[in-house]
């Protein structure tokens, strides 16, 4: 490849990187502005970096709002991810390996649930939750989050499982391994990447939720971060909390960026179900 072409690719890469990272850079820059600088209209802080916004939400007056929300977001999303991966692991195994009527129905249902408008079911869920005491609790969010994460987990994982050479299990058994050994030594290592990838993507989906978060919670007992972003206040009732929102936005973006950077290859494979090589 000629140097000219190489330069071309590198420029192309830079353009794409700018496209993807620019808004992120902006919100980071905004979060580092001092309150006086917020309305100055520049991209970068004009008067130097200030950590005020971070101390406000981490240790200052907004920390009572933000820290519980952060804990809720992590806890609820992790549990929802775990449950949905756990349930769909069995479902995906059945879909990939077993022949039984209703397979199409299950996949079809997953598809239907995936395209479901969340807003349509929020009110009935709210009514039901307050009757059975799930309103503003962790399970009250975990259960609806399953409607977001389960369909995706089933689809992604069954596609992964289809690619597993299951006959190797029998081969191992022929070689003298017990059923359990064959499963543990052969199948688990083969299936683990798919399960793990599914978990990451499911976590993203749960982490992204907003409608359930604002509708089914009302206190720090269960309110997740996206819902809490709208609750910050400025120095007084009427002052805009731009800086606090920006800082909180940066903090909730850090975990997903780390996940992306570390597991980018798996995530792409998961999103496109192993169709991409390279």
């Amino acid at each position, binding site marked *: 490849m000629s140097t000219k072409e190489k330069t071309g690719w590198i420029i192309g890469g830079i353009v794409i990187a700018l496209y993807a990272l620019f808004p992120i850079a902006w919100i980071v820059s905004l979060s580092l502005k001092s309150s006086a600088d917020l309305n100055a209209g520049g991209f970068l802080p004009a008067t130097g970096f200030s950590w005020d916004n971070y101390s406000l939400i981490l240790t200052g007056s907004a920390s009572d709002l933000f820290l519980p929300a952060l804990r809720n977001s992590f806890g609820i999303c992790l549990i929802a991810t775990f449950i949905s991966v756990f349930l769909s692991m069995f479902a995906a195994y059945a879909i990939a390996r077993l022949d039984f009527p209703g397979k199409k129905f299950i996949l079809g249902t*997953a598809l239907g649930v995936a395209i479901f408008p969340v807003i*349509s079911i929020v009110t009935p869920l709210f009514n039901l939750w307050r009757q059975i005491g799930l309103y503003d609790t962790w399970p009250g969010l975990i259960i609806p989050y399953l409607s977001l994460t389960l369909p*995706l987990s089933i689809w992604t994982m069954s596609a992964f499982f289809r690619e597993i050479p299951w006959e190797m299990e029998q081969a191992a058994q022929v070689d003298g391994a017990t059923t359990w050994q064959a499963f543990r030594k052969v199948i688990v290592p083969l299936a683990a990447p798919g399960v793990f990838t599914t978990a990451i993507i499911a976590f993203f989906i749960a982490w992204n939720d907003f*409608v359930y978060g604002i509708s089914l919670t009302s206190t720090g007992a269960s309110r997740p971060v996206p819902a809490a972003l709208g609750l910050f206040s400025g120095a007084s009732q009427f002052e805009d909390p731009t800086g606090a929102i920006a800082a909180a936005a940066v903090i909730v973006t850090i975990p997903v960026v780390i996940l992306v950077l570390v597991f980018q290859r798996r995530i792409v494979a998961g999103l496109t179900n192993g169709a991409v090589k390279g």
Partner: protein
Amino acid sequence: MSTSTTAPPTGRTGASAPAQAPKKHISDRAKAERKLGWLLAGPALAVMLLVTAYPIAQAFYDSLFDYRLTDPENRSFTGLSNYLVVLTDQLWWQSVGVTLLITVVTVAVELVLGFGLALVMNKALKAIRPFLRAVILIPYAVITVVSAFAWQFAFDINTGFINSWFAWLPGVGADTDWFGDFGTSIFVVCLAEIWKTTPFISLLLLAGLAQVPEVLQEAAQVDGATWWQRMRRVTIPNMKAAIMVALLFRTLDAFRVFDSIFVMTAGANGTETVSFLAYRQTISRLEIGLGSAVSVLLFLSVVLIAFVFIKGFKVDLSQARGDS
């Protein structure tokens, strides 16, 4: 609502068939397998049905009543009159129009942009491919609400930098109030949506690109076809399934747009979308009956779109599923 929706598996047409059971004792084995299948898949199915089927049935039931949350004593059955109110209201049709506008604009731009990105990633140097992949995934992983705030603050007349950076463009100046009227508000909303979801489309298309047989490409090249001819005659027809699946999912996702509208305009200047309208009737106005009718209509619209795609455009989901 998540804009980072479920990715359907884009057809690996040659996906390995499930391991077949030996043909002996077929009825017994089949029975056992059937039982095991339901046992394993049943819980997931039950949970999915419980959290969606029950609420939508309840929403349909509620939509038949005149029911205000603060006034439960006067709840009364009114049949389909809530639907009549919604369907004869100009605001409903306006919201449908806005939603369709956002859907068409974002999906069209995303498709073109996503295709370009996919081509670049497909051809890019091996050395920078992982880097590009990581970078492109970041918008996908960012929370929609965070993206909406970032774009809103960027365009805001006080906190933003857009006005000072783009003052050289005709019509943009220090005084441009992007959220001051319909056109510019929708423009910013679409921009935020496009930024966030193009990566998703481009990854699906990248998967599709990988399915185009190299041989065909090379043959066309040998025949002296131009780049554009190869694109039109070979590449695109061969990845039609991937394109259609990406289109279907993004269209359904865009049609449910809520987070961005809620954060950026709160429905000002006629930017209400259908989801936002449903939210306002049930959550703000507390009119459970009327709001449920909007919700049910939104649900039916989504079903209709899916139906049109699957039947009309013959999106082959079974192929996408890989179990054809």
